[in-house]
């Protein structure tokens, strides 16, 4: 059987001291090479899934974990975070509290140093990771001097330098301004399209990542409500609204057009697609023109 990056089967998890189940029977697979985005409101359980993927749940954040939870074939309950961290890199939502070194270079080198990687290889990995996130040359900068978007990209580089097989990001754009968001999603898009990286992304807002994800997973109240390719999941924006996630505006446009024009099955994932299709098929065929 082909080993999946993440394999959850009827997983349930309750944080210690809590009466509610953060995950209440979740079955979810992430295949190698997939880019999966989990969409859900606050409290839906998407963060908990991110934390399970490198073992922070249940090792650093204790509680009751039931069901199957495997990362690259390893049961997270039986393998320490230090071991899972070699396979899974994670980026958290708060830029400030995940960068703790005094320079960008130290930060990105920290992971491989902990794994006793030889110095030359660390050097290579640091340069490779910084280039990937567009922060080449920032080696000696202190984290304090970076913008939010830059900090998050350094955090991604710091995870990538460990050469993980999967990258997990928990609401990475949380604290970012528009420029920072664009920088971040450009990096993620590159990771997918140029490097075929396995990525698990958790978001509250569907606007950006939906466009280039392989699969969207909708969650609410600790359960998976639906899962499928973006075009399918965004066909009816009400599906997203009903779980408390704002659908991308272009998806709403497509849906409204489909309602007004008989027989049309438009599907827009981003502004470019929407423009091209609208110009080509709607505005080009005025009333009286062929259809």
């Amino acid at each position: 059987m082909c080993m999946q990056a993440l394999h959850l089967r009827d997983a349930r998890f309750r944080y210690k001291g809590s009466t509610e189940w953060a995950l209440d029977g979740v079955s979810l697979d992430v295949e190698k090479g997939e880019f999966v985005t989990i969409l859900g409101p606050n409290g839906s359980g998407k963060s908990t899934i991110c934390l399970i993927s490198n073992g922070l749940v249940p090792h650093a954040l204790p509680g009751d974990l039931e069901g199957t939870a495997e990362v690259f074939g390893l049961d997270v309950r039986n393998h320490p975070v230090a071991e899972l961290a070699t396979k899974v890199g994670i980026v958290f939502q708060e830029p400030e509290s995940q960068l703790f070194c005094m320079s960008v270079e130290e930060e990105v080198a920290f992971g491989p140093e902990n794994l006793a990687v030889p110095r030359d290889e660390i050097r290579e990995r640091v340069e490779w990771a910084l280039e990937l996130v567009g922060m080449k040359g920032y080696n000696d900068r202190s984290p304090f001097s970076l913008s939010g978007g830059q900090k998050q990209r350094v955090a991604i580089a710091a995870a990538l330098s460990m050469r993980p097989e999967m990258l997990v990001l928990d609401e990475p754009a949380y604290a970012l301004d528009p420029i920072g968001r664009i920088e971040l999603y450009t990096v993620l898009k590159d990771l997918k399209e140029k490097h075929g990286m396995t990525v698990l992304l958790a978001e509250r807002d569907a606007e950006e990542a939906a466009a280039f994800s392989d699969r969207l997973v909708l969650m609410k109240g600790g359960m998976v409500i639906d899962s499928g390719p973006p075009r399918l999941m965004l066909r009816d924006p009400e599906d997203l609204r009903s779980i408390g996630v704002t659908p991308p505006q272009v998806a709403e446009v497509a849906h409204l057009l489909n309602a007004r024009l008989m027989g049309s099955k438009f599907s827009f994932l981003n502004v470019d697609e929407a423009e091209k299709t609208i110009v080509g098929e709607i505005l080009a065929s005025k009333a009286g023109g062929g259809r």
Partner: protein
Amino acid sequence: MAGFVDLYTEADTFLHRMDPRVKIIAVLLLSLLAFILSSLSYLLILLAFIFLLLFLARASLSRTEFALKFVLRFMILIVVLWPIFDPTGSPVLASLGPIKITEPAIWRGVTSATRVGCLATVWYILMFTTSQRDLVRALVKMGLRFDFGLTLAISLRFLPTFGALIDSIKDAQRARGLELGKGGLVKRSRNYVAILVPTIVSALRTADALSLALQSRAYGARSDRTYLRDLKMRASDGVALGMLVAAFVLPALAKYVFNVEI
């Protein structure tokens, strides 16, 4: 608040390039030397030497002045107060009741002040020519346990962040009508709770998040670890270290073994 602890200024001088371990040892030896020497003339020579180093480190006059402002004031205070508390010796220059200003006492005051000047300036040079990163690296290389070094590094890294946090909290509470300077002792202490609690809560939250981040980077995965940047002593560092040890050992020998009065 960053300026308070981080005096490091980048420049390309031999002091900046020197191995930080040698610099730390230099500062320790020179500080000890300042205590070993008891004659003013030798202390002044030491002070002159230290100022020469300061010059070679290309410290700008204005920044140095600012940093050493307090030290200067302290030195003047010592010179002024010493004779008042040390009435021994002759000749007596002036007297007012129990207070006797004697010439030797004045010289003793000046000697102590010079000593303080030597100490402060030499530590300033260390901070000025060595980044925090290198300082911690040097301490770890000299034997400090890695996790202590990491704790120190993280604390230093977060000092400016917490400074900014406290300012932000103060602003937020002032915007709710909190007046920090007002009121009697009891009221003022209660007011500080409004600053302290959010600060501590934020600090704890940050600590929790940091702990998760550290674990996620496999911290503690193995007992051995490698280092991207390593400290290597070069020939020039060895020479400097040799000269330093000589500069310390010779006077020490002279004083304690050969009883030369220095």
